[in-house]
């Protein structure tokens, strides 16, 4: 689980994949540096027990590839970098997440009755760009 109590852990579970992919996209990096980058981004540092199984799954799915560097006096360090498949996954998930976040914002910030009406739902499905202007006002 992620340490930061400010964000509910079930929210973070939903976005951890995407955020870790984004951090790896910046260049070859390793487990603890990814955790530190997530913390610096305000998401809290994930425990090793959460992060490494996720990196292992990324590797099996060919989203990332890894390389070991020799360690001075230690067993070494494993660096992850994004594959082409991983880059595609990051791009498509980022686009999907943006749409999803906008939909959630609309749902939360508009009149609940209007948000649940069939007309609004149809508008949401057919034209996601119409809700992209909604400002996200919720704070942690």
């Amino acid at each position: 689980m992620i340490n930061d109590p400010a964000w509910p852990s079930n929210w973070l579970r939903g976005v951890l994949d995407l955020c870790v992919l984004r951090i790896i996209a910046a260049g070859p990096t390793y487990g603890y540096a990814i955790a530190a980058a997530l913390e610096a981004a305000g998401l809290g540092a994930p425990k090793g027990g959460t992060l490494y199984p996720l990196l292992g799954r990324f590797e099996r799915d060919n989203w990332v590839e890894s390389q070991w560097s020799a360690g001075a006096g230690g067993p070494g360090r494993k660096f992850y970098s994004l594959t082409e498949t991983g880059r595609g996954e990051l791009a498509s998930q980022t686009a999907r997440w943006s749409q999803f976040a906008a939909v959630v914002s609309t749902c939360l910030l508009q009149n609940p009755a209007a948000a649940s009406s069939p007309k609004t739902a149809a508008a949401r499905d057919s034209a996601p760009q119409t809700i992209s202007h909604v400002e996200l006002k919720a704070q942690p």
Partner: protein
Amino acid sequence: MKFKETHPGKNGKPNTSLADLGSLAPDLDPAWAEDFILALRARGVAGAQIGEALAEADDHVKASGETAAEAFGAPTAYADSLDLPADPGNSPGAIMAAVTPVLVQLVGLNLALAAVPALRDGRPAHLPLGAIASLALITGLVLVLAGAFKPILEALLIRPVLGTVAMALAMAICLSPTLLWSEPTLEFPALPALIAGLVIVPAGSVWIIRTLTDDPITPPSHPGAAAVKTAQRRRSQTALALLVPFFLVALALFNWFFAP
């Protein structure tokens, strides 16, 4: 290397290490690392992959300053969560293939040792019913162990005392027929049996050496060191396999002079 090194545990007591943790994972709590290794072995994960998982966990605790338990939780649960694939070399079939020559050697030993006093007394050799029953039970036990290697190892890991008692009980059950039923049943000519035993036992050793597979836990960034360790382990396993024929000769001499 195995079972030789000791490391100071968190509580100051030395822990016997399953592997050379000093070079594989110097910053991990040895007790946590041992349970982690056992759990991955129980899943049939290859040694090289276990070495990688250990090295990555070690790097994380070194960088974060956390203990292994704080960072990763319980070692068995963490080993499960990594979902590493089982190595085909650890399949029930592969384990069975590795123990078959040992079973064959056991048959050869029994044949030869029954033949020695018979040859001395100029009578046919007898194999007691108990020895045959014990051989059959040991073969059955080996089959069960090979077929259910993972659950048995996991059970040993979770309930070490109960597991050890169960294994000791199983061995006692296997050997009890030898002690209980000593009346001779199977009769066969002594000289051919001795020759067969003397051929089968060294042949079993050669079989073991030829099929020797090693799967050491290796640090990912020092393959050269791992190769040296593998060679050392192969030499000690080869020496162990070659000891069995000498063991047979010693037991045969003992039987010649002391067996009734």
